């Protein structure tokens, strides 16, 4: 069963963001990693790159398939998870913590309000499964 922590916001593209002050930590959801299967490579941007909400910021590759990564918010990358270069499997084993992907300085903290809550995202995932 996929997990849906309540301290983060979600997107319909299966990313999550955890806001701490003016910084958002971004990764992919437990449901997303389950769908991908074993992650073997994560392509991340460089620190200092700027993105608008819903831009592609990278790519995740599993044994079976790949998926683009979309940033939920507008801002500048302040850190990337270097550990994923050698241990991409962290995305599978710890999608909401050790498997985080980038930190981004938020242009507009209000953007986060438009994202999904834990229960809204869980409902969305369930509706996807039924299709």
């Amino acid at each position, binding site marked *: 069963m996929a997990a849906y922590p309540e301290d983060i916001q979600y997107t319909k593209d299966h990313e999550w963001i955890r806001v701490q002050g003016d910084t958002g930590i971004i990764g992919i959801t437990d449901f997303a990693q389950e769908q991908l*299967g*074993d992650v*073997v*490579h994560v392509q991340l941007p460089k620190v200092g790159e700027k993105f608008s909400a819903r831009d592609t910021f990278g790519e995740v*590759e599993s*044994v079976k*398939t*790949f998926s683009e990564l979309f940033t939920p918010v507008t801002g500048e990358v302040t850190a990337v998870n270097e550990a994923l270069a050698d241990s991409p499997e962290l995305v*599978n084993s710890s999608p909401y913590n050790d498997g985080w992907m980038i930190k981004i300085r938020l242009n507009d903290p209000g953007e986060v309000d438009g994202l999904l809550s834990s229960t809204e995202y869980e409902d969305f995932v369930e509706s996807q499964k*039924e299709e």
Partner: protein
Amino acid sequence: MPNTQLRKTALNEAHRRAGGKMIDFGGWDMPIQYPAGTLEEHLRVRTAAGLFDVSHMGEIEVSGPEALALLQSLTPNDAALLADGQIQYSVLTTPSGTFVDDILIHRFGPDRFFLCVNASNSDKDFAWICDHRAKFDVEVKNCSANYTQIALQGPKSLEILQPMADVDLSAIKYYWFTNGLIDGVPAIIARTGYTGEDGFELYFDPDESERIWEKILEAGKPSGLLPCGLAARNTLRLEAKMALYGNDIDDTTTVLEADLGRICKFNKGDFIGRDHLLAQKQSGLTRKLVGFEMIDKGIARDHYPILVEGREAGIVTSGSPAPFLKKNIGLAYLPIESTGIGTHFEIDVRGRKLAAQVVKTPFYQRSK
């Protein structure tokens, strides 16, 4: 909700109970992976053992005084070389020397043969054989529903299975089989597989499926045996450069282009497609299936375009990370002048042109 249109093997419930991730695999509801995940399943088969449900595969029996003659006319390999209990990799060829299917022929007796064929092709194969049997005194039966087929693969397969078998499994050589009992259940015990490892493929009564499946899993637990899904089966067969029908071979690729000249026995007599294949052999191939390895960081996936000197020159027929080799590998048909080992070319990976090179195959070969 499971799609009720999908076909199910007798082990469907067992896969679901074990947490198998089920997908529509050519119309069959099959486990793509179990909770351990594809990487772990793949590595277990290389280092210990894995158990696969491959009951979706088809089985066709050809028997009668002219069974051999019919098979000789349908396939390029020389089935007359088979002894009782021996197995041969072969092909049902079209008149143009391409693939109806690739198959395994098991010889039960001089006038009785058992074919293992691809799941998605079994009805087509059966119809093909029936369409070409008129001149022959044979009986052809599609007995796919009569068998559960499971594959126990990996270096520990023998030690796991032996205590359950009433025959000496070590006496069965690679590509031979015997009829025996597995935990009291009559089974065809074949030393074959689609992983590049030692192992056994077992064919038996579907009613005994769950009991035998669970029993083998239980017996193998101390050895590290895991149930494995079809994703691991695919990465394993790719490392071993075993062709997959629908990807690497089909009715547009000839047996010679698929680099299977070793199974084209032109001296055995006529067979469907012989003239075309012989002409192709004499005039020389224009393309051939080769194995490649990525040089640049990136994964070539099925169907990605191949570029030779900047021009599109084919597609990747199978591309994937190779979990045991820890490389990104694949198969592709390349223009014959580009098929030499070490030849560099490019693959269009979602708009990025990444370097790859032709390498020696199989990518992986077990130590014997």
